[in-house]
């Protein structure tokens, strides 16, 4: 399998993730979209790493995972506290930060 296959798969995954973030109102599902986008990036990084025969991409993929885990912790905490305050997990309900 050539690099192009991996990159196309990564682009498809990224698009699905992005569309999920843009289209779904549920914060949890939006989060899953974000995770999908991150994983598509990881896929591309690991693929490049394999092709070039270096470890840089793999290391970067680990970093992404760490950051994603941290982000999920913070993001879920926010979602939970919003749910506590407003009884909703829709991302459109709270728009207090508008200009």
């Amino acid at each position, binding site marked *: 399998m050539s690099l192009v296959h991996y990159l196309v798969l990564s682009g498809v995954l990224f698009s699905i993730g992005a569309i999920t973030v843009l*289209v779904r*109102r549920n914060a949890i599902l939006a989060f899953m979209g974000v995770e999908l986008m991150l994983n598509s990036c990881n896929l591309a990084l690991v693929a490049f790493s394999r092709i070039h025969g270096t470890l840089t991409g793999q290391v970067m993929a680990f970093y992404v995972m760490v950051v994603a885990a941290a982000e999920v912790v913070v993001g879920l905490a926010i979602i939970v506290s919003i749910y506590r305050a407003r009884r909703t997990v829709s*991302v*459109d309900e709270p728009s207090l930060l*508008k*200009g």
Partner: protein
Amino acid sequence: MLGRRSDAWGHLLATLASAAAFVVGLLVVLEVVGQSPEARVNDVHLFSWIPAGELSIDAGLRVDPLSLTFVMLITFVGTLIHVYSIGYMSHDVARRRFFAYLNLFVAAMLVLVLADSYALLFVGWEGVGLASYLLIGFWNQRTEYAVAAKKAFVMNRVGDMGLLVAMGLLFANLGTVSFSGVDAAAGSLSTPMATAIGLALLLGACGKSAQFPLQAWLGDAMAGPTPVSALIHAATMVTAGVYLIVRADAVFSAAPTAQLVAACIGAFTLLLGAAIACAKDDIKKSLAGSTMSQIGYMVLAAGLGPIGYAYAIFHLVTHGFFKAGLFLGAGSVMHANGDATDMRTYGGLRKVMVVTWVTFAACWLAIIGVPPFAGFYSKDKIIETAFVGEGWQPWVFGGAALVGAAVTAFYMSRMFFMTFHGKARWVDDAASLGADDPRPHRHPHESPLVMTLPVVVLALGAVALGFLLSLGDGITGWLEPVTGHVDHPEPVLPIPVIIATTLVLVAVGVALAWRQYGMNAVPTTAPAGSVLTRAARRDLFADDVNEALVMRPGQHLTRTLTYADTAVVDGAVTGAAAGTVASGRVLRRLQNGYVRSYAATILAGVVVAGAVLHLVRL
């Protein structure tokens, strides 16, 4: 500072200040007279005024016979006018302010004549301009008076521009504006440059001295209280132009063309003013025309160069006396007639105002040049000088001077007869003959002593001053250190012929006026008159010309500029502001607080950035 408390004595203080200036001036004169003629020109350095690197302007006084002559005239006549004003303005609530302005006027004029450089002269020059503005518009509660003051001010500024240009040119070419510096270096100027400076100076002189084409303000300047008119016309303001021309002798000597233009302007204004004076029924406006005409004589004499300078100053001094006398006499007549200025409503006043009548008669004989009154000596010298020269000049200038003398005799006699002789064209209040009488009801009376006394002194000057000053070439000899020694050149006609012709013409003028206004009844409303009369009544359309040539285009220009300012400049600024506001209003929509729209924006941004990078790469 003292407010109303000084109302009781403010005018006395002002008069005292003026009198003190006269005494100081007199002491200086006596000191200078004791010196030899060579030592009579003294520059007194006061302080370094504008030091700027290489260039520095010092403030200093020049004490010489010319400036001292002016100091004497200004302070003496000025003091008399102060005294007169005590009586004339006694009913005015703002008398204190009036005297402050008068003092400012005199002080500015003293700065003007005592300055030792054009720069300091300009300070005084502007000072009298300001003071005249304040005084002409003294009764500014009446709009037309305020307008008259503005007119005088603006027309004077036009003249001042000439003086400023002249100073700039002097600086650029000679690097100095002090009189001594310019006098020493003026010979090195090229003729065109000297001509340019001379013409610019002449423009300044024309503005101040109400010479053509800047003469139109003088008639309207009559809006001020009468003592002001006397001061402006006799001792200050209008004499400044003549002073400037005489002072700038060095420049004018290097510029024969400018000199010729000055003489032409003098001759022209002399006839113009006389024509206007003939047609005015307002006693003060007629006198204003007369001033224009007499100053025309002086400018003509000054334009003739060194041969005329001394006579210009001589006539200026005698004129200062009799014109002040005439104005104060006119003020006295107005005072007696309830401030009416129309001569057609006077008549037969000689019986009720004997002192005014006699003094006015003395000044009248002086101004028309009847020997042995003062005007004869000074004006006759100018007429003689006007006949000196070659080619067409003596005939034109001399002819104008002669015609001017005849017309002067006519209009002054007209004024005199209309006012003091003939039948009374008013009804005495006390002996009211019936309410249906159309003539105005008045109670003319002689003015109080405080007003008549200065007039008597001025009238004495009008009688004797000419003879005294011409005694043994007194004034010409006195002024010689400034004007230079001149051998008397021969006029194109013998002098006795000129004198005789002048006197005959004067007699004809008086006789005509007597036939028209002394013997015959004067209608109380002005008859329609010929085209020329109607034109002269309107100042020979000077106002219309000014309005059409200067005022209207100026107003259009300012209006266009204002429009351009609001539309283009303000438009650009407010447009930019409005654009910012509008774009802000649009951009605010993006900050809607919806997470997904932010995400969409970011994504779109990334896609656009990627596309751009991709395209640029290719």
